[in-house]
């Protein structure tokens, strides 16, 4: 008998085709299995050591995120609270980042927790991405209010999300949603985006 090989499935496994129905108005894609590490750090004196490990400064302003390229590739660090950050990196770096961050914190008061399984990552872009989000999110996403680098924890269609504004002018967003809410949110996006399915770019 051959063994039944089970492969890992992301929360939105098999949804790519349906989500593609929203293009070209909104390009929605899941980026599965990304590394998400929660970092609690009260001692600001260790921020420099942590930044060195990540190659990115920690965000000092509430509701923002920082990004850069470091020893562990492209990394984003989101502000989640006055002593809480969410480190976002390429898939498979959970253990590497965890131990590197623990080392950087040393004996200072802090915590590093792999929370990759908690949320999945959705990227939204395209000319109607902002409008689509506005159907279910009270946050003002106009570039003058939420410029690039904004990171808010809010509700999208009653579902808790972390929203990162990657490029405000181009309308590029990242939405982190809890794994158990992912299918609900994908269904909601498809429904809220019905009016944009006929959308075609008008040549200027």
């Amino acid at each position, binding site marked *: 008998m051959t063994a039944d090989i089970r492969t890992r499935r992301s929360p939105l496994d098999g949804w790519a085709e349906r989500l593609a129905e929203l293009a070209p108005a909104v390009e929605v894609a899941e980026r599965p299995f990304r590394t998400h590490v929660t970092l609690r750090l009260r001692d600001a004196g260790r921020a420099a050591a942590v930044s060195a490990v990540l190659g990115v400064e920690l965000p000092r302003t509430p509701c923002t995120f920082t990004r850069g390229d470091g020893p562990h590739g492209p990394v984003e660090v989101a502000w989640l609270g*006055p002593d809480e950050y969410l480190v976002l990196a390429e898939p498979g770096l959970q253990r590497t980042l965890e131990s590197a961050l623990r080392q950087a914190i040393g004996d200072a008061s802090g915590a590093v927790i792999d929370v990759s399984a908690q949320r999945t990552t959705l990227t939204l872009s395209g000319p109607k991405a902002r409008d689509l989000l506005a159907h279910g999110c009270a946050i003002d996403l106009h570039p003058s209010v939420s410029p690039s680098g904004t990171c808010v924890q809010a509700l999208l269609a009653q579902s808790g999300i972390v929203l990162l504004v990657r490029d405000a002018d181009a309308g590029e967003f990242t939405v982190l949603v809890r794994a158990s809410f992912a299918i609900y949110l994908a269904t909601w996006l498809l429904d809220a985006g019905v009016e944009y399915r006929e959308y075609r770019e008008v040549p200027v």
Partner: protein
Amino acid sequence: MQLIPCPWCGPREEVEFHYGGQAHVSYPADPAALSDEEWARFVFFRDNPRGPFAERWSHTAGCRRWFNAVRDTRSYELHAVYRLDEERPVTT
């Protein structure tokens, strides 16, 4: 919908928040010395003023931090919000 200004995140819709009752109710310094009546007073008894009231709120759908707010119970107007490590501000 009413907006509540979180000390960290700024003005957000009230559905993102959770109410936490009266603020500045401190734990008894010597709990063992309290009589049953005094315990009941600490656990169950809260002020219920008509007017400005210092309350605890949590930004549950946002930064998940507790903070204090002075709210007028007649008008729902928020006179001030402040962090837990800050003194109650003077409001009119």
